[in-house]
């Protein structure tokens, strides 16, 4: 297995008024290709900062981030944007779909940003069908349930086949039933397509779906565990996907 994401002695300090807030204090981490990693920790421990640094949305105060072998920390904003476009898919707690676009339109927009012009209709249908959204392609976000919206957001993150998915509390806005469905689909994607996923969560049950859990506190990794995967709820397996 090769390393898809690596952070080396990552430090991030925010200046709030005259105070310095140390969000990360020398965090080093490696994520293998095809791994499903969950990051847990109390609020303010630096989880989201870590995710934003890994996605090139922030520049660290010190340290390095390497995505698929490319160092993004010393790069220009344009270069980091390019890496994010080619190699990273984001999934957010609040879904962050474009409300004026249909489910398929949201995917098309991601394809356009990727540089695929009008995109690949077959690929969009494949991804939406993978997430059991074939019948919802023409629906706008407000016509979808929370679980469906999050699945569209996952489909959007997947449509350009990124090397890495960064999910920030993907079940934070979902009820337990929809959380289970979304987590099972993420795990299936990971197992059957070897998709690397890094997921932040507060929920210990959600973290159990990952291959590995790291616990953070005060900007450090304090412990690591390998959970036993929970059973897949009936009817949530991804269809048409072969490992």
């Amino acid at each position, binding site marked *: 297995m090769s390393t898809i994401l690596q952070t080396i002695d990552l430090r991030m300090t925010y200046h709030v008024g005259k105070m310095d807030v140390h969000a990360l204090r020398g965090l080093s981490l490696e994520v293998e290709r095809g791994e499903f990693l969950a990051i847990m920790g109390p609020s303010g421990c630096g989880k989201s900062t870590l995710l*934003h640094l890994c*996605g090139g*949305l*922030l520049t660290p105060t010190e340290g390095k981030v390497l995505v698929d072998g490319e160092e993004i920390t010393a790069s220009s*904003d*344009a270069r980091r*944007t*390019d890496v*994010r*476009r*080619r190699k*990273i898919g*984001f999934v*957010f707690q609040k879904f*962050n779909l*474009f*409300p*004026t*676009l*249909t489910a*398929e*339109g949201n995917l*098309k*927009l*991601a394809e356009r*940003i*990727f540089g695929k012009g009008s995109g690949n209709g077959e690929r969009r249908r494949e991804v939406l069908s993978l997430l059991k959204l074939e019948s919802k392609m023409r629906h706008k976000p407000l016509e979808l349930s929370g679980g469906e919206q999050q699945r569209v957001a996952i489909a*959007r993150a997947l449509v350009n086949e990124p090397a890495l998915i960064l999910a920030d509390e993907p079940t934070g806005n979902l009820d337990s039933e929809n959380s289970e469905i979304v987590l099972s689909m993420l795990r299936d994607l990971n197992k059957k397509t070897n998709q690397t996923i890094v997921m932040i969560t507060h929920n210990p049950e959600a973290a159990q779906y990952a291959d590995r859990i790291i616990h953070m506190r005060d900007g450090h990794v304090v412990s690591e565990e390998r959970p036993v995967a929970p059973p897949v709820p009936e009817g949530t397996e991804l269809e048409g996907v072969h490992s």
Partner: protein
Amino acid sequence: MDSLVFENVRHRPLRTIISLSGVAIGVVLTVLTVGLAHGMLRNTAERQANVSAEIMFYAAGDFSPATGQALGLDTLYKTAILEGTSRVQPIAGVAEVSPVAQYLQTSVSGVGFEIVEGVDFASYSNVTDLKIVDGRFAVGDEAVVDRRYARDKKDINGQPIAIGSKILLFGRPVPVVGIYEPEIGARLKLPLDTLQRLVVNGAEKCSLLLIKVKNPAEQDQVAAALRATYPSNRIVMSRDLPSIVSGSIGSLEVFLKVVVRLAAVVSTLVILLAMYTTIIERTREIGVLKSLGASKTFIVVTIVKEALLIAVLGILVGAAVSVLGKFGVEAATSLHVDVELKWLAIAAVIGLVSSVAGALYPAIRAAYQDPVKALSYE
């Protein structure tokens, strides 16, 4: 249509309507103001072309071919020029002199203004190409109108004007007894003495004298004799009218430039405010675009495209309103509006450029937003 640009325009109808109205106002302001100015000048020149008198003789003071003058000239000048008096010799080479009184009144329709002319029909026919094509010359409290006036205006009963129709003049119904061609001077003409009675209590006054010379080749000598005999009066050669009108255009162009620039500023400001507000509303969406890997250029282009789409809609609406406005103005008033393709194109370019200029600052601001702050924007 799954396009962010189209959907944003479609799903924010109020913002879209306000923004495109701003562009449309710019287009209407430009096209109608320029059209009105050019239309009136063209019409003035066309009507003047039908006057065969070579010289116009005015009282001292400012001269305005567009509006005429008040009744400040004594009609006795006609006799003096043709026959002389105990103090001045007659002017040699003059064939005919026709006094014309011009009076600006509220339009018969009640909207805008129109010039009413009092003429001595016998001499006026000798110094212009005027011909009565229907009915007869007016006598006493009667009027004649030109063909277009008869076609466009209504009588006091709201019916189209024909021989025998009555129109309201100086607060009284006046019968139309003749229709003349071609268009010369004012569209509505009364006998000179009637206008003098109504405006200056019957005093022998007029606004100008139209002077036709016996031999057109000698018009300069006649004008020179007039200037020598009547140095305080203003003598204008008919052949100089085009350059006088051009002179008016010169100063008019300055005014039009101001109007066009004002239109551009209005369009720019409306688009700037609309797009700026939109960008603030959509801060989180900008953050999402960045998280998807959208470059600064992509974000700027997306926002500018949205502004351009609004501008195109505004230009179409503005052009339609301008054309409707032209017909409305011409139907309700005696004004002429020339909606010119050239100026429609200029207004369209101004609308597009203003929209890009207005959208650029909000677009650049959006492109440089901190993605993490944008994503956490509520």
